[in-house]
């Protein structure tokens, strides 16, 4: 890496990555001369701070309405707006950090809390518990969390109740069935006749992993939202969204079985490209880039390396060598813009973090 830094010095010689980090957190509109949505992937070993980094970065996501971020960085005045965040709810999760009491304990009273809403499917019965620390050898019962919960019927209903500029944690339905749109796409890709045994009929109910639900949401943002607006003229279209996927290999798996592979491949070939234009950004993290489907990996344009990450230099996706990543301490990451500059950035441990919550009733 020394060759990029005019001499030796390894990690110490790397400049800071304030600019690339700002660019991947701040989004602008293509119509205003900007780039549109960005796709960022974080790699790091277990326990190296991926979730900590996610939770701190969530507070930085924003978008510019009037100008491009390039102009903004060059001194053209504008005000960044808080961006809508859609996070994937997991069985063990840390979104309870953004509940007001927990948030104030960790970040102080000065910083206002972004509003948060948790979305659960109407047929599911999910409750949230937070373990409490034992005091004086006594075991304390888990605390029941009461966030703002909305029970959605379908994706349209979910969309209409998303808090703009807030944190929206979405739990996919426990029993999700393949939508007609995805059936059509799979049929087209498999090139089967309607009479064929493997043809997926419209009235056929096929249970699928919740991954399909996320693809349906992406399709909704790309195409269906315009049609829904015709039905509900008063409805606003959300201008800029970030999807935060913790453990993204579950959404974009590299070794998917055949039916799921069609969905993943179709998403990689088609939908992920459109996300940029509609200002949908993806912020995903995984343990190793090899767990992510390679065609999707090639569409990410910001790479973040935490301790224990694997260099992507052989894939020609990155120019950061393994020797440099191996020097990273916990609490520092390298951020690289694809075909652009890279730098190192520090982040702190969250003070007094809450215990991980448990989503009881989630299958």
């Amino acid at each position: 890496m020394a060759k990029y830094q005019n001499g030796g010095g390894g990690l110490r010689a790397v400049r800071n990555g304030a600019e690339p980090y700002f660019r991947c957190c701040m989004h602008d509109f293509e119509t205003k001369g900007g780039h549109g949505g960005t796709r960022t992937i974080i790699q790091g070993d277990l326990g190296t701070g991926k979730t900590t980094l996610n939770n701190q970065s969530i507070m930085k996501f924003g978008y510019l309405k009037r100008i491009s971020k390039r102009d903004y960085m060059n001194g053209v005045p504008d005000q960044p707006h808080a961006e809508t965040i859609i996070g994937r709810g997991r069985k063990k999760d840390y979104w309870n950090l953004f509940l007001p009491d927990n948030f104030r304990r960790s970040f102080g009273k000065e910083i206002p809390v972004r509003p948060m809403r948790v979305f659960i499917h109407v047929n599911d019965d999910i409750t949230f518990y937070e373990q409490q620390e034992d005091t004086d050898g006594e075991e304390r019962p888990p605390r029941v969390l009461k966030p703002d919960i909305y029970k959605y019927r379908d994706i349209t209903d979910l969309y209409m109740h998303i808090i703009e500029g807030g944190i929206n944690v979405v739990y996919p339905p426990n029993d999700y069935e393949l939508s007609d749109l995805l059936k059509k796409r799979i049929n087209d890709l498999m090139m089967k006749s309607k009479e064929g045994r493997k043809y997926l009929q419209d009235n056929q109910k096929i249970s699928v992993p919740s991954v399909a639900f996320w693809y349906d949401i992406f399709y909704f943002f790309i195409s269906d939202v315009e049609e829904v607006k015709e039905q509900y003229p008063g409805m606003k279209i959300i201008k800029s969204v970030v999807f935060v996927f913790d453990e993204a290999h579950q959404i974009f798996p590299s070794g998917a079985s055949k039916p799921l592979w069609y969905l993943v491949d179709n998403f990689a070939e088609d939908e992920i490209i459109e996300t940029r234009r509609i200002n949908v950004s993806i912020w995903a993290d995984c343990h190793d880039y090899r767990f992510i489907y390679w065609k999707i990996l090639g569409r990410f344009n910001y790479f973040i390396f935490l301790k224990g990450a694997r260099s992507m230099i052989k894939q020609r996706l990155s120019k950061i060598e393994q020797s440099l990543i191996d020097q990273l301490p916990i609490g520092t990451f390298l951020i690289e813009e694809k075909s652009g500059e890279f730098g190192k950035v520090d982040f702190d441990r969250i003070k007094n973090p809450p215990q991980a919550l448990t989503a009881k009733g989630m299958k």
Partner: protein
Amino acid sequence: MAAESFVDKATKIVPDTIKQSIGKLIVVNAGETDPARKIHYASALITHIRSALFYVANNNELREFDDVLRAMIYSIIKSEYDPESIKYAYNRMIKLYEDKPRTWYDALLMSDIALIQQCRTNWKVANRTYFENNDAWMTSNEILADVQDALVEVATRWNLVIIPKEMPFNISAMPNLMIPQNQTPLED
């Protein structure tokens, strides 16, 4: 407890939502030893801070008039009786009187804009000094040192974060964006 003096007020961080929301990260090439690069760095900083302050000024609601005179005096003291700056501050003051009532906060904003204007004038002097005579880089550096001190002071007051590329950067330095619309697509 003694009453808070204007200087106390002026140097502390102003709690204002617009100021907080402007929270801008300014990444610059700092730590340069070459005088020409230093000049360029100061110029970039002036542009950023000036534009941010004008943005705050243009997007602020008018408030009650208070402490304006003291702010202007403060501005004049800071500019060390520079005739250009006094003239600028005087013009600003007249504009303020014509305008609707404002608070000391707005007066402070105006005084900072005047200060930045003064920085710009000084920067021009440094620039001219260096480029007209390359041997005069020491004079140029001295002027720029004062300019940079003033710039950092103003930037800190208005939640503008200056990050030199050579310095470590922690994500906590980047301002949080915490003023959402708090609405759903169905609501007005």
